[in-house]
């Protein structure tokens, strides 16, 4: 069990626990958000182990630093109180969802066991230089489309959330 493997299992455990924490956390939403952040950071750690350094940093900066803060921002802005789990009927939905979850879980694990061992790494695999080059040579259209999407999202969010000043 090499160091990376140990680290990976640690991060994996952390991610799963905080994910469950987020979902189960009923009383207050900020706690859910916090557990989500922990999941994000754990995943960033795993990315580093999988040689995706730039993506790890961006994961922390964007997901951890911006998106979840946005969640916190909204939660704090709206000053929400906790919500409960809903009437009995919900229980049926929850049970079904849980069952599906477990079923999918076991089934996928079984399916994905036996993948080949990770091959040796070409030099400079996940670094910012290669990803930058890939982004702006092969996937330049993708980048442009993404920028377009983000502008649209900004405008959309603005219109949705703007207080009607009439």
């Amino acid at each position: 069990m090499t160091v990376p493997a140990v680290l990976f299992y640690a991060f994996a455990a952390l991610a799963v626990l905080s994910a469950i924490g987020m979902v189960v956390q009923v009383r207050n939403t900020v706690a859910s958000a916090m557990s989500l952040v922990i999941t994000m950071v754990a995943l960033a750690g795993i990315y580093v182990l999988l040689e995706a350094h730039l993506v790890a940093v961006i994961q922390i900066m964007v997901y951890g630093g911006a998106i979840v803060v946005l969640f916190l921002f909204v939660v704090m802005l709206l000053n929400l109180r906790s919500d409960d789990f809903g009437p009995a009927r919900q229980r049926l939905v929850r049970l079904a969802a849980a069952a599906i979850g477990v079923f999918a879980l076991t089934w996928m694990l079984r399916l994905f066991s036996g993948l080949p061992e990770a091959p040796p790494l070409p030099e400079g695999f996940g670094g910012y230089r290669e990803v930058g080059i890939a982004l702006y040579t092969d996937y330049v259209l993708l980048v442009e489309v993404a920028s377009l999407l983000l502008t649209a999202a900004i405008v959309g969010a603005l219109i949705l959330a703007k207080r009607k000043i009439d």
Partner: protein
Amino acid sequence: MLIGVIVKSLFILIVMVAGLAPVITWIERKQSAVMQDRIGANRADVGGITLLGLMHPLADVFKLLSKEDVVPTGANRIMHLISPVIAAVPAVIAFAVVPFGGVYTLGGEEFSLVAANPDWGLLYIFAIGSIAMYGTVMAGWSSNNNWSLLGGLRASAQMISYEVTMGLSVVGIFMVFSTLQLQDMVVAQDDTFRVFGFLEVLFGLSVPAWLDFVRLPAWGVFYQPLGFVLFLTTIMAENKRPPFDTPEGESEIIAGYHLEYSGMRFGLFFMAEFIEVLVIAALMTTIFLGGWSVPWLTTETIIGGIAGVFGEGFATGICIILHFLSFMLKVVFMIWLQMALRWTLPRFRYDQVMDLCWKIILPLSIANVFVTGGIILLAGGTS
């Protein structure tokens, strides 16, 4: 390899964090007093010696330790307890990436005086910055107090916006040094460039030989003057330093997010802030003021000169000391600059802070990127 890292990180912890941070509290008090034509704190003494007030940080520490640690009722206990730690730890671990010495080969084995040198160096700082944000946000929210909540909100909004502009303003530097690793940047800054060289490069004029003598150290600030200004403003805003300290704007929302904190956890918040000041100073020196490089003397000239007389090992030792001294000098200068800025500029209104970020710094930094790109293309590859 591991021992080296441990030694270096211990060195950082002791010298930088434990040593210099408390001194900064003193510097701030003293400098602000001198600027306002008053003496400043000098009462605290140990057996009569006041050392111009240097004892005060010690006194503060003991004072805060003795204070009762109050947790407001209805507050989310765990979050309230954790948030100062989350605020302070990132500030400390930010030093891992800052090089305080050059790259030397001693006895065939090469070592560089930087705790960790991942190839995405500077991004590490930004990542840490975005984690630190949670400390303030959680503090604001968990202390069950409207003013602190407001403080937390303002802090998160401000930090998010400035994170964007911080990233963009430093892109110029990336382009010039075409690397993200701080150590490589400093190595790149460790020589000089001909001042009038740009005439030759940009306009193709021939420059007479004697003008070559006028040289400047190849520091980031000379390549990226606008970058220096923008980065300084954004990183101070990121750190919620006075010109931008609306989150804890005393006049409007009392103490902002760390309102409900007392005792050592309040001390932690303060300590975090001052370590941030140190980080900013260290970062600015590394990126813009050439880090550990001695102005007109590159590492080779120093080692070459001394090695001839006293031998290789001794020369490198001298060189290390020289580099560390130049680094510390620049850091002190930057601290002074920040304190000066703090005590001269009035606090920005909250919307002004936001406008400054989105409407002024963002366009400027983007323009800076384009201009730098243009110059680099004209100069034909990175100089």
